[in-house]
């Protein structure tokens, strides 16, 4: 394990920099995790959903009589019934509307049409197959440009003011300045590529157990939620129920990756059913339901151009994208930015001009647009710029590494104001790249590549030097449905010196119970084992916007550090009181205050905690507890360089990763072991995107990629054996210098894999292959290049 940041606390305390073994593991390794599907309540009923088999159709009739007559069936819910309670539609996180159960039309294959509530899950599924629906099929649109064509059928005719399929037009940057840069360019390099639709597909699917108490009106919903507080508010808005009576409990989550950010119809139907029937109702998706109906990601058709001068300096960037939003616009992203943070597309490079145009369109595909292990479309952006840069290097005739080096933003330029309005907090891109190249032995690899080519073997070296932007938000710019993207931490130090930390975010495997305890340990010197971390219960944690877009450490982590420091200041006063000294004369080292100059005279944080409840100075409030809501002054900008080495079989197009070197800089690493784990997971998903993982549709809108036989998730066998290292450039504005890391690797790595395959074929003139790089696509590219 590599660490270049040295812990300041001893291992017994276990603050920042220690690879503390995870507290949460004890239950997981014993099969005692408590996931939604593990919840059993007295009298609980089971729900199954009937979904549309077609992508676009008018519903002529729904016959539920046979299903209703079956033994064990308690109720069949249709859109009509939901409409009677004003619940047939719900708002999306992007301020659009989405059908909970279809009333008029179905608009994508897999859309929710009816639900059965039964005494047992087998019966519920059996009954679903006994509901008969008459559909009148309508023309199907599966591509955003097709959606925008003249005369295209209007998908969202449920919306009064909607006369076409446009969701939004959005732009960023300075068009005139950018046009001038292109006018002055010696060379223009362009690329057109599709970042295919994919799905986060955590191993646990989505689900809920809704429990409405008919007497008290208390609504408790256990659900797979990455953002329980925001979901409570959405529930209150959707149902009109008083918010204090709604309690969202997000128990252990079996992976999220963005899939569990939106509110899904299933949650709402289960809750409505529980409300109507007066019994708890459980709904758990099958994998197919998960893949065909819940939040997809990407599906960006992108064009990018770089203006270059003859020396290889980038002068400007232009980009236009068409986003396939599916049937309902439900990206979970900041209101102000329709294309998420795609405008970070200028990347790790310094140039004055950029202009980005984005169009979003409705299609007959599942809604979503979630930030799949990514900060709101940063993955697409990072992919585009890193592909462009690689191709630009070929056109200029420079080595891709040297080309990057020439154009990188330099360390002394931080904070760096990007042409699309971001303020990059800190970075040393050159250092990270040099380190990665060194580990890979880049020069030698280039020699090997040359020699191999002589023998007819195709070896390729791909780089990606990504910059990510994570940790939304900054309340001035970032909100979801008006809820500002701050986050919170409530710390209570008990009389015996043990502590409980309550957070508004929700771990889905990231190890919050350990990492956040380490922040408290660092700041207060309380041993990490004495700190319990609680998340995911809206009745028992302070309000927060949740865990996605790598925002937990940047925002909730900062809130934890700040509240710890606030309590430390209070502790200082108590310590002074106990030692009859002036607070200003006390020195702090993790775990104790001592009087300056006489280190033998000290009190421990535990002494102080006890005093906080037993012996307080006059005029001081009792207790050592507090809550802080942290509104970040800026985002954090993790970065790094990935180097991939591949060999392509020229006869079949099959390619294999020989090496994958990843140097990440996410600022200060709180728990290096956990950080590395996050990176390893992300690199795997990046590999999956590059190699095999995608969802596509036939022209009738049938989803191809609707189960794990077709939607390919790599196993241990295919997954490359990553070599990890780090540089550490702290974030200057984050209280502990940390940046988010959960997603860097998914964001940064796809381009590295693809660049490597392109590099293997570059001498033939190949410049682009769309992901996933299936062997037939690679082979065809070789054939086409040979034909000239």
């Amino acid at each position: 394990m590599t660490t270049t940041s040295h812990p300041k606390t001893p291992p017994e305390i276990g603050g920042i920099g220690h690879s503390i073994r995870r507290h949460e593991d004890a239950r997981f390794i014993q099969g005692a995790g408590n996931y939604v599907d593990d919840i059993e309540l007295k009298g609980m009923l089971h729900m199954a959903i009937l979904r549309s088999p077609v992508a676009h159709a008018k519903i002529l009739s729904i016959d539920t009589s046979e299903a209703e007559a079956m033994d064990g069936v308690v109720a069949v819910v249709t859109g009509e019934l939901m409409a009677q309670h004003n619940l047939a539609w719900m708002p999306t996180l992007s301020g659009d509307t989405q059908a909970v159960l279809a009333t008029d039309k179905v608009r994508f294959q897999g859309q929710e049409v009816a639900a059965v509530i039964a005494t047992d899950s087998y019966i519920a599924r059996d009954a679903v197959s006994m509901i008969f629906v008459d559909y009148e099929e309508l023309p199907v649109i599966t591509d955003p440009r097709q959606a925008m064509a003249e005369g295209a059928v209007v998908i969202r005719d449920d919306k009064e003011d909607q006369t076409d399929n446009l969701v939004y037009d959005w732009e960023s940057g300075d068009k005139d300045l950018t046009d001038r840069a292109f006018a002055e360019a010696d060379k223009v390099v362009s690329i057109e590529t599709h970042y295919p639709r994919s799905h986060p597909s955590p191993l646990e699917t989505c689900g809920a157990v809704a429990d409405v108490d008919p007497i008290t009106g208390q609504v408790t919903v256990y659900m797979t939620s990455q953002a329980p507080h925001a979901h409570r508010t959405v529930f209150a808005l959707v149902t009109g129920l008083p918010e204090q009576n709604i309690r969202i409990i997000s128990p252990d989550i079996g992976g999220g990756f963005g899939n569990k950010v939106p509110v899904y119809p299933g949650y709402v139907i289960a809750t409505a059913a529980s409300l109507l029937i007066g019994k708890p109702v459980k709904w758990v998706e099958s994998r197919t339901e998960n893949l065909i109906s819940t939040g997809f990601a990407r599906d960006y058709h992108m064009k990018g151009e770089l203006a270059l001068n003859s020396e290889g300096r980038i002068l400007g960037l232009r980009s236009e994208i068409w986003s396939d939003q599916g049937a309902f616009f439900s990206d979970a992203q900041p209101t102000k930015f329709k294309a998420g943070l795609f405008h970070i597309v200028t990347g790790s490079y310094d140039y004055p001009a950029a202009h980005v145009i984005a169009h979003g369109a409705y299609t007959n595909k599942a809604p979503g647009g979630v930030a799949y292990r990514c900060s709101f479309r940063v993955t697409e952006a990072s992919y585009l710029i890193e592909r462009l840069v690689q191709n630009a290097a070929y056109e200029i005739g420079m080595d891709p590494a040297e080309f990057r080096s020439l154009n990188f933003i330099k360390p002394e330029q931080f904070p760096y104001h990007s042409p699309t309005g971001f303020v990059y907090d800190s970075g040393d891109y050159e250092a990270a790249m040099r380190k990665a190249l060194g580990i890979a032995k880049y020069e030698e690899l280039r020699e090997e590549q040359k020699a191999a080519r002589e023998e007819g073997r195709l070896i390729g070296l791909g780089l990606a030097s990504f910059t990510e932007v994570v940790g939304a938000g900054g309340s001035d710019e970032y909100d979801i449905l008006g809820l500002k993207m701050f986050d919170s931490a409530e710390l209570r130090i008990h009389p015996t010196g043990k502590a409980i930390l309550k957070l508004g975010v929700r771990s889905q495997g990231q190890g919050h119970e350990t990492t956040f305890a380490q922040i408290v340990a660092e700041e207060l010197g309380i041993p990490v084992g004495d700190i319990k971390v609680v998340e995911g219960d809206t009745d028992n944690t302070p309000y927060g916007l949740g865990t996605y877009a790598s925002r937990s450490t940047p925002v909730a982590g900062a809130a934890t550090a700040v509240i710890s420091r606030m309590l430390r200041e209070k502790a200082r006063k108590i310590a002074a009181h106990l030692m009859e000294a002036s607070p200003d004369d006390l020195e702090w080292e993790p775990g104790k205050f001592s009087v300056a100059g006489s280190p033998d005279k000290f009190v421990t944080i535990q002494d102080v905690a006890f005093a906080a409840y037993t012996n307080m100075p006059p005029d001081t409030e009792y207790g050592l507890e507090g809550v802080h809501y942290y509104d970040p002054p800026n985002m954090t900008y993790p970065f790094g360089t990935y180097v991939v080495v591949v060999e392509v079989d020229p006869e079949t197009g099959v390619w294999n990763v020989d090496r994958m070197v990843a140097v990440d800089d996410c600022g200060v690493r709180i728990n290096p072991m956990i950080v590395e784990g996050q990176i390893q997971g992300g690199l795997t998903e990046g590999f999956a995107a590059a190699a095999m993982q995608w969802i596509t549709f036939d022209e009738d809108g049938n989803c191809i990629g609707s189960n794990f036989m077709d939607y390919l998730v790599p196993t241990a066998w295919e997954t490359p054996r990553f070599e990890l290292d780090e540089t550490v450039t702290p974030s200057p504005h984050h209280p502990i210098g940390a940046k988010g890391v959960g997603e860097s690797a998914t964001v940064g790595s796809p381009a590295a894999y693809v660049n490597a395959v392109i590099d293997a074929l570059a001498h033939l003139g190949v410049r682009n292959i769309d992901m996933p790089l299936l062997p037939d696509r690679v082979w065809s590219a070789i054939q086409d290049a040979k034909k000239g």
Partner: protein
Amino acid sequence: MFPPAFAYSAPESLDEALATLTNEGESARVLAGGQSLIPMMKLRLASPAHLVDINNIPGLDYIDAANGYLRIGALVRHNDIVNSELVTAHNGAIASAAPWVADPLVRNRGTLCGSVAHCDPEGDWNSVMLAARAQVVAQSTSGERVIAIDDFVVDFFTNSLEPGEIVKEVRVPKYAGRGGGAYLKLERKIGDYATVAVATQLQLGEDGKISEAGIALTAVNNKNTRAIAAERALVGEEPSDEIFKEAAALAAQAAEPESNVRGTAEWKRNVVSVYTRRGLEASLAQARA
């Protein structure tokens, strides 16, 4: 996901199983490893009324070499084949295919005979069996019959068993003289069915010429298919790069793949050709070793 309801019996002898199958007629299905049938039932692509589970029948899990055949009983799991030295010693194509069937957990349960019976054109075993000139031993209450694999594999998910018949054993003739075989499979990941795969088997005569050749293709036709013209081109020839290339080209002609999400037809045909050539090279190397 789970199947619709069905009746279930778990006979403890082959006779009992055959009797139940005969009595229940068309509505009954044999349940062997269940690694194809149960997934299909869960997705409700199959809904047999009666399952006859053969897993409790003793004496069907044998791999042996007798009377000139390598014999594999109905309850031999894919993983038993992976671990069998007897198989490795007797048949290169079977040995090289076994590790690439499904994934390790599925291999612990799925059976070779079940897979042969299933006749999934993307399944691996029938290509291997076609190349190795296997025979299927079918049994019913009225006795046993031996079916050449070419006659057994009829079509897409269709075999030539009569109602009431069970595959009791699949057997392949031992090499006459020096032989070798290989199975090359292009799959997208572990647990994936073949996108394209080619089984090859060569036998050499005293004179070093090819005395017998077997080539069969997976996932590129509506059933596992022998590349007969390619086989014929090889027989009687001195092994050489040229003749292997010619056979490879003929094998590609025997493929009628579809373009789909796994790849274009043109590319699949190309892979057939490349894998046939490489498979023949590997088979030859093994025969000569």
